[in-house]
């Protein structure tokens, strides 16, 4: 049996690698390139002149810049929520039910053999360029004597996996995943990392002592990981509940809003104001909405519909220019949107019920988020903005997408409109914005925009960057949406005309749902693009993730000197960006496949 296997393997290898002379040559060339690349990277990372503690020691700065330590619990909650929803999603959309021990061992053996291969080919020396003479010097980094213990352990593992793979056993994948997920917790508690210590004269102690991870890091992460695992299991349990899946999808959209408006910022809420203004307004609008839904198709009220709509339009537009609390403006806009589509939808009892649910939920969320979002921050950050480092990067990425999405829809509709002036203006905006690189728009935000703002009105640079980003990615979105709009067959418009829909109803009920359906896949990739593009704000001096590694750490001299360690930080930054974008794109690809959205 073993013999046949080997024969088959050789055949597969021959077919895949050495099928022709050219293929053989290519195999050798690419292998050589890959191996030298690995050796180069390994040599770089392990060279003694690299100080990786410049990364580790500044982790807090990287993540939240100057966020006060007393309020760190808020950050942990944010991260925890992110993890819980990730766990739920992974559980809900998991497909593979069962897995067997032999299959598992095969995977592990592959990984271990890979590590063994890499350990063997790793270089023994690393090159250090002397700063004084510019001459390269060879330095020993990872001698063969050091490798032997590691190699023997790995080989032992390989044997163990081989033996275990003979046992025929299969079990649920969820169990396996939960075991995987518990590994980091164990590592957290037993691992020791080099830590910077200062002696009495504020001088750094060399070599850096190995210390266990600080409790302030260890405990929150343990809790977060546990809740992640629990969420995963819950997700697996509710796998077949469609409502649950929908709720999780919607929560993903609302989560960043909740995090940025309530948790991260710790809004200051005036109870008095709340009772006097917000709650009556909220209840009033709730009532109007419900009444509209239930009575608009009533024969007598129907006659007044056009007057009602006209009144609503006038009030809404007027409210935009009046000094009204924001909730009134938002609720009026929402009501207007609803009132337009209500007559077409609330024809049956079921339609009325679901519309009511949507109305209540959307109004509540709007009110809730507005309340948190409009309050000025309560977190006191000594000296700078509460957003900095990784949190700023995410703020730019997510809010860039959020704000640009509706703008993109409007621009796309305008460009597709039959009215020449509106079409021309929208086309002009889209093309103008797209033809110029993002960085010039960022310069516009940083130095030019202030000129256009009236006296007394001032925007934070972050807000200005968000405005510019909204326009920039909005224009790109608009082009995507336009593609979706053009794919709608003409017959649908004619059908809508035939049943007497007006333009707004046609757009909101027929055109947009279909166009947006085609857009959803690009939504995640747009967040990814925004995430990557947000790194450009370093050029205008915002303190995002990249700036911290590139400009701030390289400048630190008090109390510990990290001057000249930019390269380590750059590599770390590249790695973090890669991990996030790669995972996101992989996950989104999986979801798309599952939802069948990418295919038309």
């Amino acid at each position, binding site marked *: 049996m073993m013999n046949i296997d080997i024969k088959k393997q050789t055949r597969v290898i021959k077919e895949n690698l050495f099928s022709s002379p050219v293929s053989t040559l290519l195999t050798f060339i690419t292998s050589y390139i890959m191996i030298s690349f690995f050796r180069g990277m390994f040599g770089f990372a392990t060279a003694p002149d690299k100080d990786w503690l410049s990364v580790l020691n500044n982790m807090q700065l990287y993540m939240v810049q100057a966020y006060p330590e007393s309020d760190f619990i808020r950050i942990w909650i944010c991260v925890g929520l992110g993890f819980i929803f990730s766990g739920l999603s992974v559980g809900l959309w998991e497909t593979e039910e069962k897995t067997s021990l032999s299959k598992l061992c095969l995977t592990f053996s592959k990984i271990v053999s890979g590590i063994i291969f890499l350990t063997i080919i790793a270089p023994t020396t690393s090159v250090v360029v002397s700063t004084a003479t*510019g001459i390269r010097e060879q330095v020993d980094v990872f001698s063969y004597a050091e490798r032997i213990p590691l190699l023997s352990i790995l080989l032992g593992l390989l044997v163990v996996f081989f033996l275990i793979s003979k046992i025929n056993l299969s079990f649920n994948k969820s169990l396996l995943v939960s075991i995987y997920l518990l590994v980091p917790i164990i590592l957290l508690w037993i691992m020791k990392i080099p830590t910077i210590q200062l002696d009495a004269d504020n001088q750094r102690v060399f070599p850096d002592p190995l210390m266990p991870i600080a409790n302030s890091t260890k405990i929150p992460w343990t809790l977060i990981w546990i809740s992640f695992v629990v969420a995963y299991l819950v997700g697996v349990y509710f796998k077949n509940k469609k409502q649950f899946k929908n709720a999780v999808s919607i929560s993903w959209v609302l989560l960043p809003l909740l995090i940025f408006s309530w948790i991260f910022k710790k809004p200051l809420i005036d109870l008095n104001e709340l009772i006097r203004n917000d709650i009556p307004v909220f209840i009033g609008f709730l009532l109007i909405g419900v009444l509209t839904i239930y009575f608009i198709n009533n024969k007598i009220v129907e006659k007044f519909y056009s007057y009602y709509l006209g009144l609503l339009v006038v009030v809404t537009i007027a409210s935009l220019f009046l000094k009204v609390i924001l909730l009134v403006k938002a609720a009026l806009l929402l009501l207007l949107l609803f009132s337009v589509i209500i007559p077409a939808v609330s024809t049956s009892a079921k339609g009325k019920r679901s519309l009511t649910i949507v109305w209540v939920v959307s109004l509540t969320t709007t009110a809730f988020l507005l309340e948190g979002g409009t309050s000025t921050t309560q977190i006191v950050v000594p000296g700078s903005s509460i957003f900095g480092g990784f949190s700023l990067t995410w703020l730019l990425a997510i809010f860039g997408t959020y704000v640009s999405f509706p703008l993109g829809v409007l621009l796309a509709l305008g460009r597709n409109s039959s009215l020449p002036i509106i079409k021309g203006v929208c086309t002009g905006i889209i093309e103008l914005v797209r033809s*110029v690189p993002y*960085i010039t728009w960022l310069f516009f935000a940083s130095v030019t925009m202030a000129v256009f703002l009236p006296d007394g009105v001032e925007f934070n640079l972050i807000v200005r960057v968000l405005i510019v980003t909204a326009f920039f990615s909005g224009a790109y979105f608009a082009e995507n949406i336009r593609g979706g709009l053009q794919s709608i067959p003409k017959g649908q418009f004619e059908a809508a005309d035939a049943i007497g829909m007006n333009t707004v109803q046609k757009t909101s009920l027929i055109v947009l749902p279909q166009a947006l359906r085609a857009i959803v896949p690009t939504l995640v990739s747009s967040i990814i693009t925004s995430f990557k593009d947000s790194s450009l704000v370093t050029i205008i001096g915002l303190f995002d993730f990249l700036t911290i590694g590139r400009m701030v750490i390289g400048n630190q001299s008090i109390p510990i000197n990290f001057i000249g360690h930019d390269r380590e930080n750059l590599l770390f930054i*590249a790695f973090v960006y890669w991990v996030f974008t790669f995972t996101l794109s992989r996950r989104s690809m999986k979801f798309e496949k599952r939802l069948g959205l990418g295919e038309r």
Partner: protein
Amino acid sequence: MVKLLSKIGAFFRNVVVLKWAVQFIFLGGLIAIIFNYLNIAVGNLANTNIAFSWGFLGETPGVSIAEGLYTLPKSGLQMLQTGMLNMLRITVTGIVAATFFGTILGIARLSNNYIVEKTATSLLEVVRNVPLLVQILFFQALILSLPRLEVYDVGSVLFHASSKGVALSWPNRQDGAWMFMLYFLITLYISNRVYKQRVKLLEEQGRETKPFLWSLLTLVILFAIGWYGGYRIVGIIGFVSGFISQGLEVLPGIFYQILLSVLAGYLSFISVRKQINSKRSGELQGKYSDDDYFKMIITIVIAIVFIALMFAPIGQGISKFLVGDELTFKSDWGLPQFFGGISNALDWSITGVPYELNMAEIEQVGTTKFKKYSTEVGKSLTVGYFATWLGVVIYTAIFISEIVRAGIMAVSKGQSEAGLSLGLRRSSLLRLIVLPQAVRIMLPPMGNQYLNLAKNTSLGIAVGFPEVVAVGQTLYNQEGQTLPVFLIWMIFFSTVSLTLSSIVNYYNRKLKIVER
């Protein structure tokens, strides 16, 4: 009375009236908003004592630039020109390189060879998921970790890399290069004509006419003649344009005003005539919709505004608001210089081969211990240029590889099977059957990637490469004129984008015609 009211009601319920009312309200609102903000801007600028002006374009900025046309610019304009040329340098070479590497990578991703395919895929996953800026900074760090140039000996080298950049052997341009380039374009055109002629013969007479061989022969012979001095024939063009230039110089400024006005009038006339002609016959005869009238009116209005800008005092007022200066037309305004430049470049008396292949050279700087790469022979690339170039090329190549892969996969499998059954080799199959069909699918998204590449060159600012954005920033740091610099960026990038997309569209259309 009632009748009148109902008539007014009917008027306002008329679709056409509503449509235009809404649009004009929209336009009015937009213009009002724009004017409001312009007003604020003017006020704010007055407060900070920086009046909007283009004067800085003529003043000496007093800073030097690392590389490019003018390293010590005499005026803001020269400085910006240097940045623009640097940007175009990366864009043009980058597009060629990215297309080349992208195609190779795309094919590699479809390869049967396991290692090749996996390597290409992992390269894709790494490059696509890391911000371009980080990659450019990374490439810079990579070059900076090379040894200093000072440790090497002076002399000629085939290829050299150090922390001062990269040097390559290169065919260096000689005096006749520009003339030769023009000559070569003409040669290409002629050999293309020969090819078509032979194909026509083949179709008409049915005998083997070897069109490819013939055109290649023409090309080689003409190239050889040109290389050893034959290119001087284009000096005729220079001679003629020298005459034109002299003739134009004596013309007064009013001539240009009239010329441009006539041109504007003519263009609007053509466009209106086209509108009318499109409905002159057939079903739609004479049925002009309100949109058609609108388009015609707008064309005429634009032409009138343009002409007014040329002559009328109100036009001068507008130009003073927009440009900060009245439009003045002088005879040294462009055209004579343009033709004069051509006549200087295409000089009959230039001799010698157009290009000379040189090795790169490491030189001593004066009598110091410092060394540098020669800028005279070979090609030396600075760190900033190299990092930016490599960054944008690899990043774009990855996206192009995806497009190539998708394009090839979109060609139906039956096509390749048919080719294989005819006994074609894999390489010929790809070259003759798959790629020509795939290109048609690939071209539009490819054009988008080219545009992205052009825009991404602006990241050179992070590694000290003086492209147009970096140079513009230095300029407004000196002069405080942010708004004009921003407008120049906008116009420049729009021009580049429009040019690129019209080139891509041209080929797109051409390929489509071939299809039918």
